């Protein structure tokens, strides 16, 4: 007696080999693949990218980096002026984070859908401010503020503050939207007003998350602070710009290395702090 499977195969209704995609899906799949390839070809052509230079590129890149950037001129960054600029970068990132967080806290409160005091007016306005700060790249803020206020640390700090508001405001309000409503109802039942509800029901719940976000924000702001100087705000980026304009490649290499180093240190520090604080508070 033939098995059902044998009959099905023999009748040709079920294919012998298994495939993940059959006729209509496979057509869509290959169509999408073809479309993507066509788009890549079009884009490469439109941007006139020298594809023929790509194969030997890695080798040539290594060779050129080795010839022009090696050895990095460490002497260029081993002086008091440069060290002072590192301290300035730290100061900028610190002040920008403190200022940005201070502004972001009420904004995040207004911009969280569940806790906002007024869904009609404050919520859209606060959302708009946070989104506006977020969607403009921090370097564009820097360029604008440098053009208005002149060179110096102040425009850099303000640009980083705006960046910080956008970055932490979004994360803060998301943390508020994830809280449990029980405490809020309990506090409200005692006759508390909006501010009291925020302070006694919301803040204790988001404290740990916000502390972690604050440290992470500082980390990201510091990363941006190392380069805002490139557009005329002070700090390490100012030295980078000056060396790039002199085409002093070995100095540039030394500065880039120092930037990467301090950023990695800040990242390790922030990761360590975040785990420590999460453990201490919890």
């Amino acid at each position: 007696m033939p098995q059902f499977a044998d009959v099905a195969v023999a009748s040709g209704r079920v294919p012998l080999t298994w495939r993940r995609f059959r006729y209509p899906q496979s057509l869509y799949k290959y169509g999408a693949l073809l479309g993507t390839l066509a788009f890549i070809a079009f884009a490469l052509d439109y941007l006139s990218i020298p594809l023929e230079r790509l194969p030997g590129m890695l080798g040539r890149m290594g060779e050129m980096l080795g010839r022009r950037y090696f050895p990095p001129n460490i002497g260029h960054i081993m002086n008091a002026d440069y060290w002072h600029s590192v301290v300035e970068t730290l100061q900028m990132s610190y002040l920008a984070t403190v200022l940005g967080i201070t502004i972001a806290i009420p904004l995040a409160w207004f911009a969280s859908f569940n806790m906002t005091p007024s869904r009609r007016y404050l919520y859209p306005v606060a959302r708009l401010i946070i989104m506006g700060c977020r969607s403009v790249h921090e370097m564009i803020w820097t360029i604008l503020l440098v053009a208005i206020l002149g060179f110096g640390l102040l425009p850099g700090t303000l640009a980083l503050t705006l960046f910080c508001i956008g970055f932490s405001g979004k994360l803060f309000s998301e943390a508020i939207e994830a809280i449990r409503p029980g405490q809020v109802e309990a506090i409200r039942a005692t006759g508390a007003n909006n501010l009291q509800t925020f302070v006694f029901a919301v803040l204790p719940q988001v404290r740990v998350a916000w502390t972690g976000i604050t440290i992470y924000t500082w980390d990201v702001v510091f990363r941006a602070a190392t380069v805002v100087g490139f557009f005329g705000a002070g700090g390490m980026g100012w030295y980078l710009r000056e060396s790039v304009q002199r085409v002093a490649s070995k100095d540039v290499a030394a500065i880039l290395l120092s930037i990467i180093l301090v950023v990695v240190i800040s990242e390790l520090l922030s990761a360590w702090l975040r785990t420590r604080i999460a453990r201490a508070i919890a």
Partner: protein
Amino acid sequence: MSSLALDANVGSIDARVDAIAAGRSRARKWRYTSYFVILAVVVWTVEAIVIADTDWSRILTGSLLTTLGRFLELDWSLVPDLWEPAVETILMATLATLGGLLLSIPVAWLGASNITPFGKYSYAVGRFLMTMSRSVHEIVWGLIFVSAVGLGALAGILAMAVRSVGFISKTIAEAIEDVDPKPLEAVRAAGGTKFQILWFAILPQIIPVFVGNMIFEWDINIRRSTILGLVGAGGLGLVLFRQMAASNNGGIAVVILAILALIVFGEVVSYYARKAVI
């Protein structure tokens, strides 16, 4: 905290009250000290940034308003020349996202703890590559690649691709670590090779996460590509750089408005694309 609770449970009620009060006063001291330190550092930085480094006489003598006014005299004659760089910016961001995706696959494979090929060594390599990519700012990547491959769109694409690797590969690696192990077992039981396990058991599970994050990264890359022109990669940033070099403030304002329009466009597209996928 736990030792305190233990102390409070033994002994008389007075001892317990004393222990709790002591704990509270210690916490209060600790809190006030940290407030004081934060405030002291704020004072120090404000002194350095706002007082010592800023030329207030120049800002307050009214030149601020004249500069602002110059930005408001928008130079609309620039608009016809902006279409091509805008398209260039979008194409650069798209190619960079695809390139970043290609580069991310091996990095995610190394950095996902459940499929990494050589135990904790290759895992450490994968994680290190992710951190490097994320922790270096795109302007710095841009400078490195401009000096390596010359001015032009290619440098910008490579810079953004390398910068994207950190985020894309980290999310892919996390998605891989979270996959349901049953399909893996099924493919292995059917005699599948390691590659077949990846292709038939892991890939279908991570595709949704993956596509959503790609769209998100594309949105961010549009934002990045608008400024990479400032260090010599093409697109709207290059136009902005030229206007800055010519100190044509009205032109700068128009280019920045164009960049904003482009970013809003990217955000709207990515919002609907993600909605369609998820």
